[in-house]
């Protein structure tokens, strides 16, 4: 069975948008985690975020369940971004 039409779109949306959220959130988390000056940490977060994007896209297509992919990606993104900001003391 092939990936076409709505089935493809239903997977592409969480892969692209959810993957984007996860990539950005991973970058933010990494900035919080790294014990280096802020400018350098942001640079590192930006460098590595894209790898997370590629992994997220592949993961969504391997899972093949759009709703579950959305939920897990957004949940993971929220947790990662929040803990990154907490670690740098940006939320308190």
């Amino acid at each position, binding site marked *: 069975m092939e990936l076409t039409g709505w089935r493809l779109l239903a997977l592409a949306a969480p892969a692209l948008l959810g993957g984007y959220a996860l990539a950005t959130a991973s970058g*933010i988390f990494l*900035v919080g985690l790294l014990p*280096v000056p802020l400018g350098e940490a*942001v*640079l590192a977060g930006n460098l590595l*975020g894209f790898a997370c994007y590629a992994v997220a896209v592949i993961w969504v297509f391997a899972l*093949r*369940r759009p709703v579950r992919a959305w939920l897990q990606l957004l949940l993971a993104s929220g947790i990662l971004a929040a803990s990154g900001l907490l670690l740098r003391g940006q939320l308190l």
Partner: protein
Amino acid sequence: MKGTENSQVAVPALGFRQSMTGLHTWAGLALGWVLYFIFLTGTAGYFDTEIDRWMQPELPAPQIDLPAADTVTVLLARLQREAPAAERWFITLPADRNTPYPQFFWQGASSSSSRLTVDATSGEAFTARDTGGGQLLYQMHWRLHYLPRSLSNPVVGFATLFMLVALITGVIIHKKIFRDFFTFRPGKGRRAWQDAHTALGVVALPFHLMITYSGLILLGFSLMPLVVAAYYGTDPKGRQQFIADAFDPPGLLEPAGVAAPLAPLGPMIATAERRWGEGRILFIDIRHPGDRNARVLFHENTDDSVSTGREQLVFDGASGALLHTQPPSATATANSAAKGARDLLIGLHEGLFAPPLLRWLYFFSGLLGSAMAASGLVLWTIKRRQQTARRAGGPGAGLLLVERLNAGVVAGLPIGIAAYFWANRLLPLDLADRAGWEVHAMFLAWLAMLIHAALRPPARSWAEQFAIAAGAFGLLPLLNLFTSDSHLGQSLAAGDWTFAGFDLTTLGFGLAFAWAARRLWQAPETARQYSPRTAMGESL
């Protein structure tokens, strides 16, 4: 797809590799043509300054042997005259192949100049034909020329991301990657295309991965602005602060608002050349000239390292004292590992360090990437043709569209690039917006090829467009003979490899296209792939 119930049941049964094949196909097809454009114009960019030279044959020989102090004096005089109140003066010295002539730009409180190339002896622009040159051709690969940055950045960014996904899934699909690499079954239609596509991907896989990831890094801040914004805010002030934090060497100050004449640069140049060797200063970056807090940054040439982050010297612009020595970013003594990694990736992407042999390797790797994207697109149509032949009914609209776009893009774009060179030599010198019309000629020629491909049967349009490309490239040396003094007879005799290299390369492309056209014209095999009957016979 038949019935949602069935597909819901079938979902868990689908293998991982099958899912990856679906993703690979989708990602490749969605942005394959954009990727082909990016790959091909970017590949031309590895010879950007050589193309510049060919497109302005009236320019003098490169000025890389002039003493730096003299050139700086000439350029400073011009900057002082033109932009005395600027916040920043930036001078690029002619150092090697990458910068044959000096350049400068300035940024002011309210306005800024674009980068100007000037004569090192006079500081004035050369009198030469108006052209975008090789620089414009290479910039198309991420600026897409007609689009604003706000649009081209996300388009190119997502195309690059799809490329990364397509590469990773491609490796997953072909887990027997080394065996596949040595497998080639020529003349067997679909299998030959499959083998070619795989081999093209595998043979330059390290290059593809490097160029794709570093391409993402180059667009990084515009593609993922929220990582920066989360910590520095969204206003321009915060962004400037980030750039200062991440990239500037220590010791830079805000302007004091107290005037102080700029210290003479001669002693600073002498200090820098004592450290790095004569002629190895690449940039001089002057912040707040004429202010008591002025700083003068010297950047070492990157020609002896892959990384773009070479040593920097920071001088006090008022007293002339050396304040700080910033080590190369990719060394252990540098203070930022992230900047080191970034400079290394960007250096690899741009290949500015590459001596001629390596530069050719870059060029061929880029061509392999272009061919990989192209063969993937063709492969999709061939597979789809075979499936259509097995089922009832004719080919769908999608297949017909992709088949026609493939011919018009894969063969049509090179013709557009050749048209860019033809326009460079044939447009009248006094034409208004001449440089703009060179590019219009490129895209108009390409548009003509797309229309041609839409009207002709695919098997024919491939052959015809390859024949046109053969003429368009193969005759360029002849055009050069009639429109400049740097033709092959002269350039070969003088050992001028910039001009001779351009002419011989285009001649090579012309011959290759002629060979391809002849093969498609004579051999019915390619046409056969498009014939449903033979495709069916093959699958039985």
